[in-house]
């Protein structure tokens, strides 16, 4: 049965795992007090981690010199735009 296999094959969303291991199963308390943020905060932090790894891989796959020169160029334009603005509107 495909339904039953979903947990047994461990093909289960990380969020489901965090939900039970961080918030449930509190039959008894331990000696060490470690306060872990709620499942939503931890999960969103992990999502950021996963997506930043994905972005890193993506940008490595592309020609990195093109990306950086484009970024540099846009930053330069923003800077010169800001400078000309401040010249027109002096303090």
């Amino acid at each position, binding site marked *: *049965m495909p*339904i*039953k296999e*979903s*947990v*047994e094959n*461990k093909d*289960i969303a*990380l*969020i*489901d*795992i*965090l939900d*039970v*291991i*961080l918030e*449930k*199963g*509190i*039959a*008894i*308390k*331990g*000696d*060490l*007090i*470690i*306060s*872990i*943020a709620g499942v*939503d905060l*931890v*999960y*969103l*932090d*992990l*999502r*950021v*981690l996963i997506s930043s790894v994905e972005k890193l891989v993506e940008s490595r796959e592309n020609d990195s010199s093109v990306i950086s020169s484009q970024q540099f160029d846009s930053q330069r334009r923003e800077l010169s735009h800001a400078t000309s603005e401040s010249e027109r509107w002096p303090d």
Partner: protein
Amino acid sequence: MEQLIYLYGFIPENETKSNPLPKMKGFDDKGSIYTVPVDSMEAVVCGLDEREFSEKALQEKTENDMEWLQQKALHHHHTIMDLNNKYTLIPLQFCTIYKNKDRLYQTVEPKKEKMKNVLENLKEKEEWNLKIYCDNEQLKDDISQYSPAIEAKKQEIDQLSPGRRFFEMKKIDRLIDDELEKEKSQICEEIHEQLNQFAIEATVKKNWNKEMTGRQEHMCWNSVYFLSKQMVELLKDKMLQIEKSLEKRGFTLELSGPWPAYHFSDLK
């Protein structure tokens, strides 16, 4: 230097006699998991080096090292799942750690009778999770076509001048939105009622938003069922039957399990 004790859960002593604990790596990825007898139960534990896993170090890691947290959370989950597949198990929360064995005994002592009862109650039973998702647009289409209230309103509007019709149509949109929410909760309650008849106990949990689920559809129901093993097939059949009947209305039902009895191991 004394070793800290990381506790995964409790299993009945007699089950490990007939089915010894398999070799499994501990939380530090170095040592092995072993059992400590506590009355007629076995605590499943592993040792941890106090210097490496102090309260401060663990707090620091869980706050700042997400990769570590993910890896350790998965370790905890996989260990608990493996134990749950072999034994009747009271699963414990992530990072339940004692200073030494004596502290573990002291903590369990006043609770052991309750724990034995819980273990007895968990025998031959399973925990299953149901999540219901809804494609709002699909259900809205369905409502706007088939709802008698909406249909009556539409006919009323047909008689009006084009200008007034525009404003009345806006009202219909709001009416459809209201109907949508009503319909969703009513359908979910009905599904729950039908599945709950197979369960000994059930808990309704909060829904997660789209940011959490990463899905297009809205989560509109999240519940867990505690049922005897022989009821599981009936629950699944019923679930599939309900899902089929609601497919065209935009509902998706997802049943997952068996989970360790995280929601039904409380020492009440």
